């Protein structure tokens, strides 16, 4: 124990210490293994989850000289950025085809280009209806460009605001009035999507296409107030990656390793230990404990607070706020191996009308998959030919408005078959005859997404996109101004999941914000 105290003192006093010494310590810690893991070494930060956000946080913290351990329950890093062979010779990412934009400055500060990640903005998006089609060329289409530009600017402003709030450790004004909370997209948080589109100078087709873009990953009734906030998603996603999503995962992992982060694979974090209001470590599923001063959780808000803490360990208002946080998992995916060469770049939205989207929302709330679902088709092999054998292609169908909890019970085999059938219909609708040349297919239902990522309700955006959840301070805004996301009411615990606007519409931004908040608090001496 004495040795530990001395070494901790030493390292706290003299960071950053020589790399060679650091390597040695780590080697020693890893070799000790098992229940003794971490003995004699306390990590400055434990990061739960080795997805894009966790790795981004690890890179930033590691580079700042902190001892970082990334805890991942799976056998490899990358989170949703994986590519899987779903049929011999055919590969695709089961969960996402393309990612939301990485803010440019963050992309360069993470040093991703050197490790082989190349991200390109989306080029084109198509929408298809029964009798007509519409195409938006990003950067060229003057009609939709105005609204898309507004959306992009607001996204950037929100991300910048979240990051700057994280970097400046909040002062605690006891008697001062709080600054008015003005968020860049505030007017969208109380407007209807239908109304915003109607008041913009848009042709009906372009408006419907923008609605399909806005609601391609999430679910809302376009006639309800607050649904305009989904416009933030229009044009946010669709950033293409050279070599597919897996390549970005590799680049992040390499960068994290070269920044000096350590990894623990195969064991799930089970609880966060606290003593005297301070975090002391993370308990793993095998009963061992990793000593750590701070924890960054990349899981969603519900999962973090409801699984890592005993039910009576947190103050009741916090638990109530977390319980009331709304998740809105609504996507399912079908991966197709098609014996045909398809070469269309960019997503194709098989888009229902606004009133159909409204009906789909109502059905989704009732636990029913509606008669008309929004489906987005992506020929992933057209972007990356290595994913399919020559003269074959891989097409993914992302279906919206799929409830996580069905009104009539679990996601059985028959219901998954129905999903497959409906996705095939959409495929057939866009490329007549392609439905017959499907070699193999794979269904990813919402429960699969929940299981794969521990994402509550299979919601990859980390919560319902609503003004009261995604803008502002999160569910504990009432507890005080010094606890604003990514900070939490638990001192030393930071959230890096995509639970706030910055995370839902930008990759790596939530992880970076959490890392910046942690560093700012350390610099203030709050965590010593």
């Amino acid at each position, binding site marked *: 124990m004495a040795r530990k105290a001395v070494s901790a003192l030493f390292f706290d006093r003299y960071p950053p210490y020589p790399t060679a010494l650091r390597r040695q310590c780590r080697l020693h810690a890893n070799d000790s293994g098992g229940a003794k893991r971490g003995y004699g070494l306390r990590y400055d930060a434990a990061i739960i989850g080795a997805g894009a956000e966790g790795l981004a946080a690890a890179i930033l913290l590691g580079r700042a000289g902190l001892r970082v351990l990334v805890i991942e329950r799976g056998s490899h890093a990358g989170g949703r950025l994986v590519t899987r062979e779903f049929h011999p010779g055919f590969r695709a990412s089961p969960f996402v085809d393309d990612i939301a934009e990485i803010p440019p400055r963050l992309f360069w500060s993470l040093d991703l280009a050197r490790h082989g990640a190349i991200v390109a903005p989306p080029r084109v998006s198509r929408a298809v209806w029964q009798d007509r089609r519409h195409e938006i060329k990003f950067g060229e289409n003057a009609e939709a460009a105005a609204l898309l530009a507004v959306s992009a600017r607001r996204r950037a402003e929100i991300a910048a605001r979240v990051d700057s709030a994280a970097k400046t450790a909040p002062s605690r004004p006891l008697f001062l*009035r*709080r*600054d*008015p*909370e003005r968020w860049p997209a*505030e*007017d969208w*948080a*109380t*407007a209807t999507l239908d*109304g915003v589109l*109607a*008041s913009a100078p848009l042709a009906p087709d372009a408006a419907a296409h923008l609605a399909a873009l806005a609601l391609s990953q999430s679910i809302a*009734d376009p*006639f*309800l*107030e*607050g649904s305009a*906030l989904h416009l933030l998603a229009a044009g946010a996603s669709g950033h293409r990656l050279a070599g597919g999503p897996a390549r970005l995962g590799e680049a992040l992992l390499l960068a994290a390793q070269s920044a000096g982060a350590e990894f623990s694979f195969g064991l799930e974090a089970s609880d966060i230990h606290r003593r005297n209001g301070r975090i002391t470590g993370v308990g793993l599923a095998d009963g061992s404990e990793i000593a750590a001063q701070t924890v960054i959780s990349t899981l969603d808000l519900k999962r973090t607070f409801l699984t890592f803490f005993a039910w009576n360990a947190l103050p009741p208002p916090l638990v*109530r*706020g977390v*319980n*009331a946080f*709304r998740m809105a998992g609504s996507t399912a995916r079908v991966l197709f191996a098609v014996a045909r060469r398809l070469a269309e770049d960019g997503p194709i939205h098989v888009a229902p009308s606004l*009133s159909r989207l*409204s*009906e789909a929302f*109502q059905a989704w*709330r*009732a636990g029913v998959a509606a008669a008309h679902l929004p489906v987005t088709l992506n020929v992933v092999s057209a972007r990356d030919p290595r994913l399919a054998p020559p003269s074959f292609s891989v097409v993914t169908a992302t279906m919206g408005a799929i409830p996580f909890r069905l009104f009539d019970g679990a996601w059985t085999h028959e219901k998954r078959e129905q999903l497959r059938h409906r996705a095939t219909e959409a495929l057939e609708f866009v490329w007549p005859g392609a439905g017959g040349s499907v070699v193999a297919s794979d269904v990813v239902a919402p429960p699969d997404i929940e299981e794969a990522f521990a994402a509550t309700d299979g919601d990859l955006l980390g919560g319902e996109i*609503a*003004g*009261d959840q995604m*803008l*502002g*301070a999160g569910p504990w*805004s*009432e507890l005080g*101004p010094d606890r604003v996301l990514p900070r939490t009411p638990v001192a030393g615990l930071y959230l890096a999941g995509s639970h706030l606007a910055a995370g839902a519409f930008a990759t790596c931004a939530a992880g970076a914000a959490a890392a910046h908040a942690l560093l700012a608090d350390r610099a203030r001496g709050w965590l010593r």
Partner: protein
Amino acid sequence: MSAPYDAVVIGAGVNGLAAASYLAMAGKRVVVLDRREAPGGLSETAHALYALDPSVVRELKLARRGLRFAVRDMPLVGLRNDGKHLLLSRDAYASARSVAVHSQNDAKAWTGFRRDWFTLARAMRALWWHAGRKDADLAIHDARVTHFARMGASAWLDSWFESDAVKATLGFDANALSPLAAGSAMLLVWRAAQEMCGLQGAVAFPRGGLGAAIDAFASTARIAGVETHTGSAVSNILLGRDGAVRGVVLLSGDVVEAPLVLSSLSRRRSLSFASVRATLDFGEAAALAHAHAGVQTARVTLELDREPQIVGSAVPARGRFIVAERLESLAHAHAAAQTGRLPQELTLEVILPAAADPTLASPGCHLVSVLITPLPAQIDGGWRGAKALLAAKVVAALSRHMPGLSAHLVGVDVLTPDDVRESYDADDAFGGAVDARRLLADWRSRVRTPVPGLILCGAAVDPVGAVSGRGGRVAACFAFERETQR
């Protein structure tokens, strides 16, 4: 009518009469013009007093003009299909006991929720109707207020309660928006901010019905020296060469000159007068074109030859009964209304006026007054054809709670959204669609129009959807402020 006036008020509703009374009491010569034959306007379609402003009652001395209350505080009763009716009265512990029938957890949460709800509502009053007070501008900057403005009623109620009974009964009061829409939590707060008879969030029933309350306003105006001309519809607003208001043109061709026009029509209708529309710039004209009407309401009055008996657990006859089984039924009704269909499950508010004030009905005759909302503005085949269907659906929905209702039915009176539009020159009771941004707007921006001298004084100023008189008061405040600035 040729005498020069200081102000013309369009519409002799409660707000118009209140605004005219305030101006007349300050020594102005005011004329009120109404297209209908009797004063009252949309207030005639209301069936209880939800939000009469206490300062209006005091300042206009309405009590001296005969405003009395038969019931000062009608308890909120949720009629449930299973017969376990929910009774939410001012007695927090009795209410909690009634809630406990549905859920123990909700009963525990009830007092905390009520305290939270009422406290926030009191804080919001400063913003909403203390026109001219400095702290009105401060309240809007509170973080909690903005948080609420972006929240749906469903999200808020879900965070406190688990039983449908409590959520649906409370959620009905946020019915100007779907409970899923952002900002509907603010409408619940708005409801609790009202003060009736000195009681927060109360609903009162005036002695002699709503007509008596309107008479009190009319006689106040008369005694203050306001001229009221009924049966004279305004066809246009007269603008001077400098763009300022000079008076109004009547449908008969007469011109009434005045430098100030107060309109109790909605913002859309006030700005749609031909002369006004010509002066709007592009942005304002576009906003006008996209303005849509608020939630639509219908009234059905049933006349019975026997006192209506409510089956199930005992409830007071002087209550305000809500028929909405779940919050989802409200959301579905809104979605149906959006697409122009009659909702599968009607959500109703029921009052028994004869039980509240026995003088209202002749002996042996009993009344059931039903408010149905939300409804579509237009319906397939027109509202004229759907009238009977609506009445039948209402009777069917009520028969579950009042068995034998149809056997004792003597008369039915239906007022559809179409009737409201045609006879009252209004799209809805709220003066336009209600949303959070409108609720949080500065009071001056609600009153003001782009035309100098044209002021709004109706429901558009105070989107409460009920008889309040506050719109008139705020408009008069604005007019005085404008005068002193000159």
